[in-house]
């Protein structure tokens, strides 16, 4: 169970029950700051090794191992594993890369595929029993991904359109009355340089954060309200039911957010490759 500190009341357990007289331990932001297992020193850097970083390493190993194993058989008539790997690859290539960027999107399939499956499995950790912590609810992880995405499309844009033209083509979109550029140009520049990466990172972070908070609240309530009274049973059963429904809903959100994050990456890369409209 996640660490839920009860400020003030030391006599209350981490997960109290209604009968103990303690208040409902409504989860707050503290549930996202888990006790580290250990710290690792590399040079002057200090790495906090906790659940989040171990899960992140686990996700990397799972995704890498799955695709290495799935790409190994290379049979003309694929087995289940190979078929699954091919479908995953084709999903990223056909539904994201080719759909958004076009034919020259094929060379970004490895990048987009890595993002999609890394984010998706990281999110999935929020509902997998034993893990039950979405890595992307720690802002640093979405930010580290977004920084790479940002660097990628900035570099591509400046390389394909020229270092100045990349910015001016975004700031002065064609088909707009000249006077509007006074208003539009700064907004477009802000959009390209600041808004895009910030919103991309925060959208993913906030979704996973909120989902985890909701799930934790109803899970704790199911236990807190469990008592041999009508109200207790009804409240507990209702909370448990809500938890089950929310878990299903959360899994949908996890996939959707991974897809949106990847789709936006593809849109930004596509915009960098070809000047807007």
């Amino acid at each position: 169970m996640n660490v839920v500190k009860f400020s003030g009341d030391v006599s209350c357990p981490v997960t109290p029950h209604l009968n103990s007289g303690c208040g409902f331990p409504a989860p707050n932001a503290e549930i996202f700051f888990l006790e580290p297992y250990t710290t690792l020193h590399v040079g002057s850097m200090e790495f906090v090794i906790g659940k989040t970083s171990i899960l992140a390493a686990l996700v990397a190993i799972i995704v890498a191992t799955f695709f290495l194993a799935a790409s190994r058989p290379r049979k003309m008539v694929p087995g289940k594993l190979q078929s699954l790997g091919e479908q995953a690859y084709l999903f990223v290539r056909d539904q994201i890369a080719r759909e958004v960027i076009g034919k020259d999107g094929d060379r970004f399939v490895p990048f987009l595929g890595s993002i999609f499956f890394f984010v998706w499995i990281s999110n999935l950790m929020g509902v997998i029993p034993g893990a039950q912590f979405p890595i992307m609810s720690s802002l640093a992880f979405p930010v580290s991904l977004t920084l790479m995405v940002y660097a990628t499309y900035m570099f591509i844009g400046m390389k394909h359109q020229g270092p100045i033209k990349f910015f001016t083509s975004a700031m002065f979109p064609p088909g707009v009355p000249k006077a509007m550029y006074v208003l539009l140009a700064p907004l477009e520049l802000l959009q390209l340089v600041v808004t895009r990466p910030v919103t991309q990172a925060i959208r993913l972070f906030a979704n996973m954060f909120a989902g985890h908070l909701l799930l934790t609240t109803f899970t704790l309530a199911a236990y807190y309200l469990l008592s041999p009274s009508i109200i207790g049973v009804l409240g507990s059963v209702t909370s448990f039911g809500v938890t089950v429904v929310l878990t299903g809903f959360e899994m949908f959100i996890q996939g959707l957010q991974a897809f949106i994050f990847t789709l936006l990456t593809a849109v930004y890369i596509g915009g960098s490759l070809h000047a807007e409209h």
Partner: protein
Amino acid sequence: MFNIIAAESEVNILRLPLDELIIGTLAFAIVFFALAKFAFPAISKTLEDRADAIEGGLARAENSQAEAAAMLEQYRAQLADARGEAANIRAEAQAEKTAMIESARGEAAAAAASVTERAQAQIEAERSQAMSSLRRDVSELALTLASKVVGESLTDDARARASVDRFIADLEVEAAK
């Protein structure tokens, strides 16, 4: 009684610890390396190979179909040739048969003609033989009769015989009239 804990805690959900940024980047780098370097090129190659194999299979099937069609055409041509040849042979045989029948008929006719001729000649010979024998008998009878009438033998008389012959020839001339 529900003691809702306010966000009085000092945690900042928007903090960005450098170690987590590095761990996140490294974790992604592992995935990207594995996928970009090994997995995705292999999968892409496999998919291409499969597409090639399927297209190759289709091309092969088309080839064999064309081959089969060509062979069928060839067989048809051969069959038509054979039929023509058979018709020729039949026509030849018919002609030969007709010729054979014709020649056999001619031969038979010739043979029949020669048989008739021979028979006619034989009849003629027998008739003349019978005639001469009859003539001799008649002349002898006539002589005998005349000797009886005259009372002397005229049998060996050459003159008598000649007159009888003359008589018979006259008779014959009379008969021919």
